[in-house]
């Protein structure tokens, strides 16, 4: 099977379309960064508190907000639904101003206690055990204290209760995403006597805190600085490597293409108002390296062809090189895209930003090796010959790919 059978596409003839396309995407991204959504930064960089809560039933954002406001937190942002609506998850975000550096975790504590109060069905549950939020060790010691199986205070009893507590927590966390629908469902997981005790003296609050992230301003700033440095270093690293492997102009063209990819990817985050987190930066840096791959394949072929036929006009030669390598460029990117797409669809909320960056970046990266990097070489040569210096695009010393 073959996708492209000896394609003869005039890529450079379409350079104005490419330029227009690139400009539209990068300029609209930049406009959004400067004037619209700005750079939506994740709590990693911005600082603040993010609490991810899962509910047993479809949560009502207004109820949650009023519960939290009653507890004294005014500017909480509630994102609902978070992820697929069927998951019943909510993301509650507090800005850094609501949480002072000295009492970073106050916001979290307030949110959790506000939710407990709101979801507590009356005072009857005050002294009861909340099975949706209890920890394994707390449950084990509760069981020992109440001793529903009348085992007395022996080591055997301790292990027996500990095992059952672990089984319950495993049932809840590993098999049911942290929420128990009904205490009756625990039949079989714990002994009948324990089940009866739980039915009488425990309740289900119907929510469970899945993750909490609290970042102080100082840590956020340090991380932001690190991310900027890392991006710069990897672009510089690529430039140096391509300079070493080819010639400076190839390196410059590749890095410009890479920069173009980075801007469009970051712009896509701004346009869609998705937050940039540490893992998104990791994805972008990976893209810097990966989108270099297609560029290298095309450049290698250009150099090889330059060595073989010095008389051919450069534009034709570049076209021919792109066409010769087209199937492998599209295939390699397409296969990587396939895996990244699977990550985007199945990988869950935590990796959503990361896989989104890769999905966008791989598409743009492939496009830019054909539409930005290679035409830049031709533009460079036109510019040189326009100044009367003749063609100087260096050819390969030795044929590759």
């Amino acid at each position, binding site marked *: 099977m073959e996708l492209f059978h000896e394609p003869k596409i005039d890529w450079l003839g379409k350079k104005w379309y490419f330029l227009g396309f690139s400009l539209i995407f990068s300029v609209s991204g930049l406009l959004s960064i400067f004037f619209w959504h700005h750079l939506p930064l994740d709590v990693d960089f911005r600082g603040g508190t993010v609490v991810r809560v899962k509910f047993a039933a479809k949560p009502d954002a207004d109820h949650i907000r009023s519960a939290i406001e009653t507890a004294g937190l005014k500017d909480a942002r509630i994102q609902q639904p978070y992820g697929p609506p069927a998951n019943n998850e909510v993301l509650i975000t507090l800005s850094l101003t609501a949480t002072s550096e000295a009492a970073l975790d106050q916001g979290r504590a307030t949110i959790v206690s506000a939710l407990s109060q709101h979801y507590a069905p009356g005072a009857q549950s005050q002294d009861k055990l909340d099975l949706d939020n209890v920890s394994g060790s707390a449950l084990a010691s509760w069981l020992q204290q109440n001793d529903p199986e009348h085992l007395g205070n022996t080591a055997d009893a301790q292990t027996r209760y500990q095992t059952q507590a672990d089984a319950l*927590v495993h049932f809840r966390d590993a098999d049911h995403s942290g929420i128990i629908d009904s205490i009756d469902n625990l039949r079989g997981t714990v002994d009948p006597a324990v089940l009866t005790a739980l039915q009488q003296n425990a309740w289900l609050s119907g929510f469970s805190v899945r993750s909490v992230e609290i970042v102080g301003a100082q840590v956020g700033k*340090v991380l932001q600085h690190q991310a900027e440095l890392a991006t710069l270093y990897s672009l510089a690293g690529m430039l140096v490597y391509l300079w070493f492997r080819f010639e400076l102009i190839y390196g410059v063209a590749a890095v410009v293409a890479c920069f173009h990819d980075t801007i469009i990817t970051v712009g896509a985050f701004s346009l869609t108002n998705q937050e940039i987190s540490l893992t998104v930066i990791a994805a972008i840096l*990976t893209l810097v390296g990966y989108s270099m*791959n297609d560029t290298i394949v095309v450049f290698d072929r250009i150099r090889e062809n330059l060595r073989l036929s010095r008389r051919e006009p450069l534009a034709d030669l570049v076209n021919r090189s792109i066409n010769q390598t087209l199937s492998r460029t599209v295939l390699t990117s397409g296969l990587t895209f396939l895996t990244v797409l699977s990550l985007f669809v199945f990988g869950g909320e935590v990796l959503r930003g990361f896989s989104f960056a890769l999905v966008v970046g791989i598409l743009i990266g492939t496009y830019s090796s054909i539409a930005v990097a290679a035409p830049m070489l031709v533009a460079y040569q036109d510019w040189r010959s326009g100044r009367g210096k003749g063609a100087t695009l260096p050819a390969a010393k030795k*044929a590759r790919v």
Partner: protein
Amino acid sequence: MKTNIKTRLLIIIAVLVIFVFGIFRIPHGLSGSALKQAILENIHLGLDLKGGMHLILQVKVDEAISAETDTDVASIQSDLQKNGIAGATVSKPDPSRADFIQVSNVPASHASDVRSILESSYSSRFDVSPGVGNSWTLTMKPTVESDAKQRALDQAIEVIQSRTNTLGVSEPIIEPYQLGSYQILVELPGVDDLGRVKDVIQSTARLEAHEVIGDQPWPDQQAALQALGGAVPPDAELVQSVPGAANEGSTTAWYELKKIPIWGGTDVRDAQPGHNPNTGEPEVDFYLTTAAGSKFSTWTGANIGKYMAIVLDNRVQEVAVIKGQIGDQGNISGGGISEQRVKDLSMLLRTGALPASIDFMQETTVGPSLGADSIHQGVVASIVGMLAVMIFMLIYYKGAGINADLALFLNLVILLGFLGFSGATLTLPGIAGVILTIGMGVDSNVLIFERIREELRAGKSPSASVDQGFGHAWTTIVDTHVTTIVSAAILFIFGTGPVKGFAVTLTFGLLANLFTAVFVSRVIFDAHLSRKLHGEPISI
């Protein structure tokens, strides 16, 4: 040629066996759950998959400096007294500078005495310089100060380590956090009782005994300041009490205490939970070291009738009048202290006080349920991605697709086996790195196969085409790997926890890919070609 292929096949099988061993070691059985357990035992999961807590703590090292200079102030005062110099004041005039002591109002007649005392006893740790009038300033030497701060950090790490050990956290990481100054990185995997753990870590657990100045406390801070004429004397401090500190039923109040404690945090030798023999209330019984005990006994003997306060983490727990000599033990009760708190507090006192208080700079908590879901989603995404790639390769390259799929499978085995051997941590982004490795790894096969097809189109024989294909694609494959690995290396250097995990899996996945896509694929081709007649076409 044939034996050559055999040796190479043996190498491949050996590698396969070694890395499969890396993933499973010797499993307890061959059932699905036994294998799953074996994998989990060998591959370390990160906090984001296992659930747990990641903290960055700031040690307020200035407090440790301040405590040190407080002692110096007291010792200068007593040195001056011993030498019969009266009237001089020793103070720390600038509250924002813990390292700065001033000796002022020195009588002119004693100026040279003061100078010689300061220079003989304090110049090793302080820069002593004369100020305006008859005064001297002592500034802690930068090396002494940074040593003291480092000591405070080391001590804090040690204390937190022993505290988390008593909590039974398995494989905790407690180490200096390099991106901040005097910060500590704490990672507690699998912890499920987060509130308690945080309390235990954050408690300074500094137990001190102070002399009470005056005998009446004030109901609030304002009243206290008013009574003191607006400012607390330099050698005293105002401390709030817990309810029930003075006697049963007493409310919270403010006491004026001598700043320098009679004994302090490091003087506690042991602490045990106990019960008050009269009321049966829970209490913490503590014991002082021999040296501190005898000092305490002398001091109480000399100060009968005065009031004394037991202070824990800047809150007065007990106030009592001294009725006679007190030896090396005491207790903390009152304030409706709970059994659990008594247990924790005894443990905290046993493991020692933190040299300075601690602020939380960052906290990431992943509940175990989210971790379990993340693993599930990561595995599904990997399998779907891998199947998609494998099926595509089979359709597009037919026979050679099988070759690529075998190489890909081996690539994955080596990567997972490497994770098992090296003890590197698999994080959620790390799983993403595995998925990316699948996608990028197969790129090498595509580059080789496309080149082989090109050679075949040019009319070369199958074996020559395979030879040329591998030869020509090699440099490009190296190029593409280098660029991606450079990116991953930068991520490893600059990244934290989960991101580092991503960099590790991606890098080793791609290194393994060099072996599988180039060496293994080639062997499979050669083995296949060796069974064919010369010039018989291959399926690609």
